[in-house]
């Protein structure tokens, strides 16, 4: 994926706007990291340094905060992502089995992105839909009462349709 310089600037403007809305207040660091994470999809060192300079927070502190919270990704995720809920209810109902099956099928480990950059597997602690456990989120779609077969099928389809388009 290539990003033109102008759209990069637009994203930076959004981050700067959030900083301005919070009056450059240091305690708004998390809010600003959220905005940056939303617009860029992940947090790289360049944006962290930018935030550090704007808020006058030492870079090591910004980095420490960004890596403390699991919600923030510091690496670029794949073009498709599958998120597994590893909450108690989902665990009890066997989400681990689905996860292992995917790891094997697509040769990618949890928390990582496949070598072709197509697929990332993430785990999260509870999406809060415990009554529908186990829950798996494929891109933005939640699959409740998920089974290995359904999830595998869904991802194969997504990857397949892309291949056809290409």
């Amino acid at each position, binding site marked *: 994926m290539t990003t033109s310089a102008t759209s990069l600037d637009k994203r930076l403007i959004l981050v700067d706007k959030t900083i301005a809305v919070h009056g450059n207040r240091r305690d708004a660091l998390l809010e600003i990291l959220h905005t940056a994470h939303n617009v860029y999809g992940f947090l790289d060192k360049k944006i962290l340094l930018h935030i550090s300079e704007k808020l006058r927070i*030492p*870079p*090591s502190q910004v980095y420490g905060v960004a890596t*403390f919270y699991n919600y923030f990704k510091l690496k670029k995720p794949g073009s498709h992502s599958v998120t597994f809920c590893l909450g108690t209810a989902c665990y009890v109902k066997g989400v681990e089995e689905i996860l292992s099956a995917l790891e094997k099928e697509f040769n990618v480990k949890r928390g990582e992105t496949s070598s072709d950059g197509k697929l990332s597997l993430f785990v999260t602690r509870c999406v809060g839909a415990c009554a529908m456990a186990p829950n798996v989120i494929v891109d933005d779609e939640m699959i409740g009462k998920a089974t290995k077969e359904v999830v595998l099928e869904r991802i194969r389809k997504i990857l397949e349709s892309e291949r056809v388009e290409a």
Partner: protein
Amino acid sequence: MSERIVKLIIDGKEIFAKPTDTILKAAIDNGIQIPTLCYLEGLTPHGGCRLCVVEVKGNPKLMTSCTTPVSNNMEIITNSPKLIKYRKQIIELLLAERIHTCSVCIANGSCELQELASKFGVDHTNVSRNWERFELDMSHERFVLDHNRCILCTRCIRVCDEIEGVHTLDIKRRGKDSMIIVDLDEPWSASYSCTSCGKCSAVCPVGAIYVKGKPLSETKRKELPKFITERRRR
């Protein structure tokens, strides 16, 4: 705060202290020893190593003496069998957490962890030891950062932030994956905020940050000069 004096009992001994004193300060002033590791006078107390925990009568929880202020008629026990056992276990856990091999450590002989281990008679660990190796950061011309020996006491971070005032160091990630970082997790030599003052190496209780080519006994400081601590903010 009034200047009145409070009376308290530590290990059966009646002592007097200022109401602004911590339990640790009151104990030290009265010749009572409480083991510490992350604590360093002059830096904001951290309360992380848990070695200085004491029992306070009427409180079911153990309290860190470095952070808890004294109050009138407090009764404190610093050395019950339970406390001694916990301290031993904590030292064991630290020794098992990363690679601590005294014979090849620059801090051998002037290491606070080693000193505590021998004082508490920790001659083995009941839990298995970790041997996973981390890369050393030897990029700086004068200092070395060896994560394998780090106990995450944060003295270096605090001295860098509170005394030197640059906050070059911090911690990345969390829990067992915590690690000391320089700026945006860069090699030390690439740091643009570090002033190379060397205070971090002076306050490191173990051999995690040290000056290249110098025995630790020469570079180490167990105390910060009083005038510095008096001048620090807060």
